[in-house]
């Protein structure tokens, strides 16, 4: 029979087991009829003949069962039988079952989560029709994806490779819908954006190429579904309504479909506005200048039959033309195509490497889990040696027994896989809805899809197979006569086996993880008491961008002054300051600074880069940044006065040589301005990393450097935990009194810090999770080892007890080996972990290896692990009843 028809037979039998059974009945009946025919011919009457024929046939049921065993139709029934038996066996040892399922749930869950993130970010194309052929353009030389608007137009009109080249950029503004104005993030899109992507409107219409008729010609916006749902309560009559965006009237023309979140992963815009209106959102630079690169991403579908290489060559020839035509603005550059949605190759490689690393780690965890469960299974198989031997002796085939053991393994792995998947799906949903930075509309596209489910299922099956196969050799070797005669073989392995080495390695890795996570947790605990160079307690940050309300030039500082004064009248507010961007907030900008004697102000000649802050005179006091020497700013440090700065100690040391030299000294900015240092403040933390080295920072008076974008720092005289909302509403009402059209974003400084410390908290959290997983794995590993060694030596232990061994001696005999392995592994791991702390110091605040608390914590954790893991086997060893055991053997 060829394999194909065999398979067909097998499958058809599988699907119709009852039909096979009916056929067997038919055949047996036919046989009995024929026999009866013969008997009738020899002279019996019919009923008698049939009775005799039936008797002669023999045990009909027995033969039918035998047929079932051999024929294909029994697959399902045997499976059901095996499942029922496995379930009974597993329920009889709930501790083992729970440990095994939990281990697998964790390991498979971890894999599913990492894979889902990898899948969502890198494997799945953007959620637009035909997303596979969508490419973004980047400049080859510097991997720069941002283009100028005129360059985009040239690329769009001159290329012959794309169906259409669309563009978008990320903008923010103040949206006034008649209620409180709000601070919104949106896309500026090219007219052909939706057409090029093939997006259909959910309501009304989308922005079209015909909307573009020169600068500021298209006062239309298209809402995202989520924003329409959240802000306009699914109001279908919204189309045609006029809202104010940065005080300019805009007509809502439609709503985008629910599953379209823009073309950048992570960031989903509130709405879409035409790019040609750029000037209404960014007044400070000419959007039509070729040297002004602000178009965030240019993307499109390739024409059918055009390869990415051909398209890149086509674009590069346009790049050559641009360089010839505009040598001042466009340097010689080639173009390449990248996957859209991740900002070109800017951070994709790092993220991909990080995720790939995580995936490998998760895979290793799963492998280790399989190895441990394999040991556990081997221990159980050894325990069940007699049962297996009996079954073999009674005529059960080895395949049948292996199949049953395998069923048990797969049952556990599928249950564990299902539990892990459920857990990871819950986690992923949390992750998709997560907003670590409340001011940005985010979209983390990691919700699980079929791929994730398939991978989880596959992993569960493979791991079940992997650990199920461990005891196979044991069963195959089983000699029923020997075992039934002599009891399970008590041959002791004193040599070092691969399994021992694996276990030590595993425990060492676990100890490293435990050390690392303890160090990280300690760092986190310390970081809450760290000196930031400012005091974030009881402070509300009020972000405003006056441009959103139509202020410009000298109206900006005047309005900012009015806002500061208004805040100060709120009861319970002790002081109010203004800062361009609070320290540690995302978006800090370093600037090159030069020594006073530098004349050629090229970046290469810079003395250092310093983070710059534009502050009001009250800021330093409000933020509680200590002024060490010199003076603070005064209201007279304005455009008519000499340029002055307050710098931190690091700045003074690095650029001027010393603090003493710095006082009254000068430095230069890249635009040539000469600034005098009038004061020195303490060093603080400025970037979103508590582990940063001291950074030069300079504070400049906001009156000398007007900026429309700034945060008010409002310090209250009481805890903001509960009173926060009250203060916030007071602030909002004051702002409304000043200008009802000004959007503001409020959060406490502590909330803001949570966002700033996001990365290091994430690192701590993942280390913690890894530590827990490592601990789980070690427990199952040691447990399996200890259980195996106890059950193998049960008889020997029994004899020792019978000969009068003390409990301690029994324990020593039973558990010395696993405990020795644990000790070796822990010490190795601890040493490695302390070495790894040097690496951790980059992300964890004050990570130090010589922390007695950490050392004690690791030792305690490992001891606890050992105790938990050896508890049950120890109990078993101690409860050995020699009489029972000897009788049984």
């Amino acid at each position: 029979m060829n394999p194909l028809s065999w398979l067909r037979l097998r499958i058809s039998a599988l699907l119709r087991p009852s039909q096979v059974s009916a056929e067997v009945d038919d055949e047996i009946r036919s046989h009995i009829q024929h026999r009866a025919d013969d008997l009738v011919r020899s002279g019996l009457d019919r009923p008698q003949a049939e009775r005799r024929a039936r008797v002669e046939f023999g045990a009909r049921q027995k033969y039918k069962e035998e047929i079932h065993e051999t024929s294909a139709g029994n697959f399902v029934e045997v499976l059901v039988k095996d499942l029922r038996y496995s379930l009974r066996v597993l329920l009889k040892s709930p501790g083992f079952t729970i440990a095994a399922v939990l281990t697998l749930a964790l390991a498979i869950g971890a894999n599913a989560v990492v894979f889902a993130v990898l899948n969502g970010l890198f494997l799945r194309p953007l959620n637009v029709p035909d997303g596979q052929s969508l490419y973004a353009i980047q400049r080859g030389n510097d991997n720069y994806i941002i283009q100028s608007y005129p360059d985009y137009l040239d690329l769009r009109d001159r290329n012959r490779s794309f169906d259409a080249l669309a563009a978008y950029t990320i903008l923010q503004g103040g949206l006034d819908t008649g209620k409180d104005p709000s601070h919104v993030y949106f896309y500026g899109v090219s007219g052909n954006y939706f057409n090029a992507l093939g997006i259909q409107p959910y309501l009304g219409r989308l922005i079209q190429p015909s909307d573009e008729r020169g600068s500021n010609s298209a006062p239309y916006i298209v809402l995202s579904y989520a924003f329409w749902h959240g802000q306009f309560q699914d109001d279908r009559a919204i189309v045609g309504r006029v809202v104010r965006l940065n005080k300019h009237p805009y007509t809502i023309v439609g709503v985008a479909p629910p599953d379209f979140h823009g073309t950048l992963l992570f960031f989903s815009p509130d709405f879409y506005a035409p790019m040609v209106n750029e000037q209404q959102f960014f007044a400070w630079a000419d959007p039509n200048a070729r040297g002004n690169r602000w178009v965030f991403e240019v993307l499109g579908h390739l024409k059918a039959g055009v390869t990415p290489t051909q398209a890149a060559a086509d674009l590069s020839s346009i790049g050559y033309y641009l360089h010839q035509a505009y040598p001042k603005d466009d340097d010689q550059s080639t173009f390449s195509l990248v996957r859209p949605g991740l900002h070109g190759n800017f951070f994709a490689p790092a993220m991909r490497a990080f995720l790939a690393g995580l995936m490998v780690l998760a895979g290793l965890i799963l492998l280790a889990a399989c190895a441990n469960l394999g040991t556990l299974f081997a221990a159980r198989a050894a325990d069940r040696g007699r049962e297996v031997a009996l079954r073999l002796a009674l005529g059960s085939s080895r395949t049948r027994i292996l199949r049953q053991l395998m069923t048990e393994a797969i049952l556990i792995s599928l249950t564990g896989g299902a539990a892990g998947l459920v857990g990871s799906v819950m986690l992923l949903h949390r992750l998709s809805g997560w907003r670590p930075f409340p001011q940005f509309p985010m979209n983390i596209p990691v919700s699980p899809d079929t791929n994730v489910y398939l991978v989880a299922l596959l992993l569960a099956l493979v791991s079940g197979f992997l650990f199920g196969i461990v005891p196979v050799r044991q069963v195959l070797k089983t000699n029923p006569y020997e075992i039934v005669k002599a009891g399970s073989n008590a041959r002791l392995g004193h040599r070092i086996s691969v399994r021992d080495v694996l276990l030590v390695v595993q425990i060492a890795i676990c100890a490293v993880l435990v050390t690392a996570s303890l160090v990280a947790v300690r760092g986190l605990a310390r970081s809450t008491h760290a000196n930031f160079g400012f005091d974030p307690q009881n402070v509300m940050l009020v972000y405003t961008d006056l441009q959103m309300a139509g202020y410009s030039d000298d109206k900006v500082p005047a309005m900012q002054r009015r806002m500061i004064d208004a805040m100060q009248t709120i009861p319970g507010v002790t002081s109010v300051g203004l800062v361009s961007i609070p320290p540690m907030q995302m978006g800090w900008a370093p600037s090159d600074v030069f020594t006073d004697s530098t004349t050629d102000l090229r970046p290469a000649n810079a003395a250092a880069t310093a983070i710059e802050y534009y502050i009001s005179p009250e800021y330093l006091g409000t933020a509680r940044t200590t002024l060490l020497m010199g003076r603070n700013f005064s209201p007279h440090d304005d455009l008519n006065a000499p340029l002055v700065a307050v710098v931190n100690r690091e700045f003074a040391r690095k650029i001027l040589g010393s603090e003493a030299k710095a006082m009254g000294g000068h430095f230069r900015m890249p635009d040539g301005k000469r600034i005098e240092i009038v004061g020195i403040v303490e060093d603080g933390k400025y970037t979103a990393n508590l582990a940063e080295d001291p950074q030069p920072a300079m504070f400049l008076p906001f009156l000398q450097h007007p900026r429309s974008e700034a945060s008010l720092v409002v310090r209250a005289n009481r805890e903001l935990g509960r009173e926060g909302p009250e203060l916030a509403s007071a602030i909002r009402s004051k702002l409304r009194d000043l200008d009802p059209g000004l959007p503001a974003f409020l959060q406490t400084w502590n909330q803001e810090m949570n966002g700033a410390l996001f990365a290091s908290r994430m690192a701590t959290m993942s280390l913690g999770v890894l530590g827990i997983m490592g601990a789980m794995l070690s427990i199952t590993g040691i447990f399996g080892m200890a259980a195996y060694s106890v059950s193998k030596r049960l008889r020997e232990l029994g004899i020792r007890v019978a000969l009068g061994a003390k409990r301690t001696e029994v324990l020593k005999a039973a558990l010395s080996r696993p405990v020795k392995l644990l000790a070796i592994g822990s010490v190795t791991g601890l040493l490695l972990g302390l070495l790894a702390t040097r690496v951790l110091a980059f992300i964890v605040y004050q990570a130090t290896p010589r922390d007695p608390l950490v050392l004690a914590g690791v030792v305690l954790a490992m001891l606890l692990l050992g105790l938990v893991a050896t508890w049950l086997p120890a109990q078993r060893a101690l409860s050995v009843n020699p009489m029972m055991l000897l009788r049984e053997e």
Partner: protein
Amino acid sequence: MNDQAQLLPGTLDLLILRAVSLGPLHGYGVLLRIGQISGNALFIEQGALYPGLFRLVRQGLLKASWGTSENNRRAKFYELTAAGRKRLREETASWNRLANAIASALSQQPEEA
């Protein structure tokens, strides 16, 4: 029944193959044919035949199809496949070797051993 020999394990399949090699047969027919060609010297419980038949079908040595018997009854007929024919040849040869060896061993005189 007492003068009938018990089957050695594994020989039933060989007998079935041999019986069917002479032409397609239904189950009862196989039984009769074995009786006929063995001179009724072997005892086979009637039902024991069927697990063997199913096993051989599964191994692809026999193929089965429903038809009408000489008694005008519905019955399942078995016939040899090419693989079955080959197996029969091999098994027959191997059985003969075994039987000859055993027979020769048993017929030796003790002093010659």
